């Protein structure tokens, strides 16, 4: 069980992600975001619950839907927003945008516009940590769609046979863009596939921040202790369109979307905390308000930031 402090921090992280994503969605409509924008709304409990156990030395590798992972790992909202605005102050200095978020300083080793590689790279971070006897872990966040990719098979197998300190977090939000997981595999229980690699696989309610926190805690502890990798499947749902500006009809029913909105991970966790008497609703409101100020300031910061100088476009290709 998380301490009160841990619980509030977990709640705050979810608030930071949610409010930043909503600011990004508004900014996208306002034309401030030049490229794609895949929000994490509805899935906040996962990044928050997992990253709560990580230090800046632990290495996170993520995918196209990576805003939440970057924020939970410690990238300030201003650097994320500035990045999507294409500014020199962004976490990737304007080179990456939504799908290429780099902040090695805090162990955010990158998001990828290509689905799959993060799984392999997290195993690779685990390899370094084992090779150099460091107590850190590599963590990959990826979607249900990635679980059908060869990188899943090869990456989990390699992590298992070398018993690497790595955590594989599958965010099963039921769809890959508009393709249902029930179409793309006859076995939609991703966690069961860990058996193919002789690796522990667990399944949690991805909208229950506490449940994610506990499952991730066990996996991270085992990994740090030399017990090898874990696959964690988090059943969840994205409540916005695949990407901002895209349609959200046709492939899923609005009833389904509403059903999941009713299971909003932030509302759920707030209810838990208050009912368990871990926090008064006033405390939670205060956190939300503090975060709002932070995000508002971040948007202003990003708007005011300069674009990178075109003359620098070919720097840093080689060391």
């Amino acid at each position, binding site marked *: 069980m998380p301490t009160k402090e841990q619980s509030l921090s977990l709640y705050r992280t979810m608030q930071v992600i949610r409010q930043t994503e909503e600011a990004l969605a508004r900014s996208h409509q306002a034309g401030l975001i*030049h*490229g*794609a924008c895949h929000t994490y709304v509805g899935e906040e409990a996962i990044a928050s619950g997992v990253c709560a156990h990580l230090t800046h030395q632990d290495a996170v590798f993520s995918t196209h839907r990576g805003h939440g992972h970057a924020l939970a790992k410690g990238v300030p909202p201003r650097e994320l927003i500035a990045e999507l605005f*294409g*500014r*020199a102050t962004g976490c*990737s200095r*304007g*080179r*990456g*945008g939504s*799908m*290429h978020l780099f902040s090695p300083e805090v162990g955010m080793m990158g998001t*990828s*516009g*290509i*689905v*799959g590689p993060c799984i392999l790279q997290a195993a690779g971070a685990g390899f370094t940590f084992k090779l150099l006897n460091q107590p850190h872990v590599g963590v990959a966040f990826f979607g249900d*769609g*990635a679980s*059908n*990719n*060869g990188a899943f098979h090869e990456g989990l197998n390699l992590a298992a046979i070398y018993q690497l300190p790595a955590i594989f977090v599958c965010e099963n939000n039921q769809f*890959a*863009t*508009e*393709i249902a997981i029930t*179409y*793309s*595999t006859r076995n939609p229980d991703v966690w069961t596939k860990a058996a193919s690699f002789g690796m522990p696989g667990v399944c949690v309610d991805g909208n229950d921040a506490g449940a994610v926190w506990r499952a991730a805690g066990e996996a991270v502890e085992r990994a740090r202790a030399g017990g090898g990798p874990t696959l964690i499947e988090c059943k969840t749902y994205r409540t916005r369109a695949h990407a901002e500006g895209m349609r959200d009809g*046709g*492939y899923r029913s609005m009833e389904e979307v509403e059903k999941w909105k009713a299971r909003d991970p932030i509302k759920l966790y707030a209810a838990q905390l208050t009912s368990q008497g871990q926090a008064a609703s006033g405390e939670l409101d205060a956190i939300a308000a503090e975060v709002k100020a932070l995000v508002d300031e971040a948007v202003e910061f990003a708007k005011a930031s300069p*674009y*990178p*100088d*075109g*003359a*620098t*476009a*070919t720097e840093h*290709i080689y060391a």
Partner: protein
Amino acid sequence: MRDITFTAATREALAERMAVDPSIFVVGEGIGPRGGNFGTTLGLYEKYGALRLCDTPIAERGFVGLCCGAAMTGSRPIVDFMFFDFILDAMGELFNQIAKMQYMSSGRLTMPILLRGCIGIGSSAATHHSGSYYPIFAHIPGFRVVVPSNPYDAKGLFRTALRSDDPVLFLEHKNILHLKGPVPDEDDDYAIPFGLANVAREGRDITVVSLGLMLRKTLEVAEKLAAEGISVEVIDPRTIAPLDMDTILASLKKTGRILVVDETFAPCGIGAEIIAQVNERGFDDLDAPPARLHGAHTPTPYSPTLEAAVVPTPQSITQAIRDVLAE
């Protein structure tokens, strides 16, 4: 003649052919009910169903390899990559299997597989959604590589691709997919053969060779320079494998000067290849060194200010033309 978009033009060619050839099927992510991320298959699922408009998991290597086996056994697969960048996970299937099957079977197998995808730099798509890679496929034996610049060519070349028994890469620049252009009525069954360049604009002073989006930029520049009395001949090879050097060399014979403008990387690129062949077959026609203008040799950045700095622009194309003329 009607004005339709590049994508609509290829969609017409596809629909027309699927109606008569039951061995054609399309695989890709979202090419079923959704009709394709770029609308490449819009409306076809309703007509031909889930097997012929076959949505896939995110398994590029897997479905490319599957299509290899399908093509070997009598069907005609079309792989719709959405973004062409995603082809990289399937390189092993392409270079070692698809490109080699006809040869290794000494002609007893054919490989009628069409691979299409959106290429090119633009719209802050960033480095995982901006790749083109066609020089690589021209380097490797066994492929036909098509890079159309307008709806008319797109439909005519797509028709040829749908009848080809060789693996065809059909590459569609993201910034021209939605542009409209004149295309003959549907009952006109024109087709454009591979390996036939188009003289997109006639001129006397210099030959400029370019493809896809760059061809369009080059035509703009040529138009402007005409006002100055500089007469630019613009050649669109349309396919880079096979590459119609005869048309390029005939133009050089006339102009004596040649520039290749291409968005992809310079080293071991299409500019180098054309220059090498010019040296081999047209050296004595050269009044100035043949030149090339390429995109910067760098991953593609996201921010508009950076992105604009890594592709040839009307300004840099104009300058490159002036430089060759000044030699």
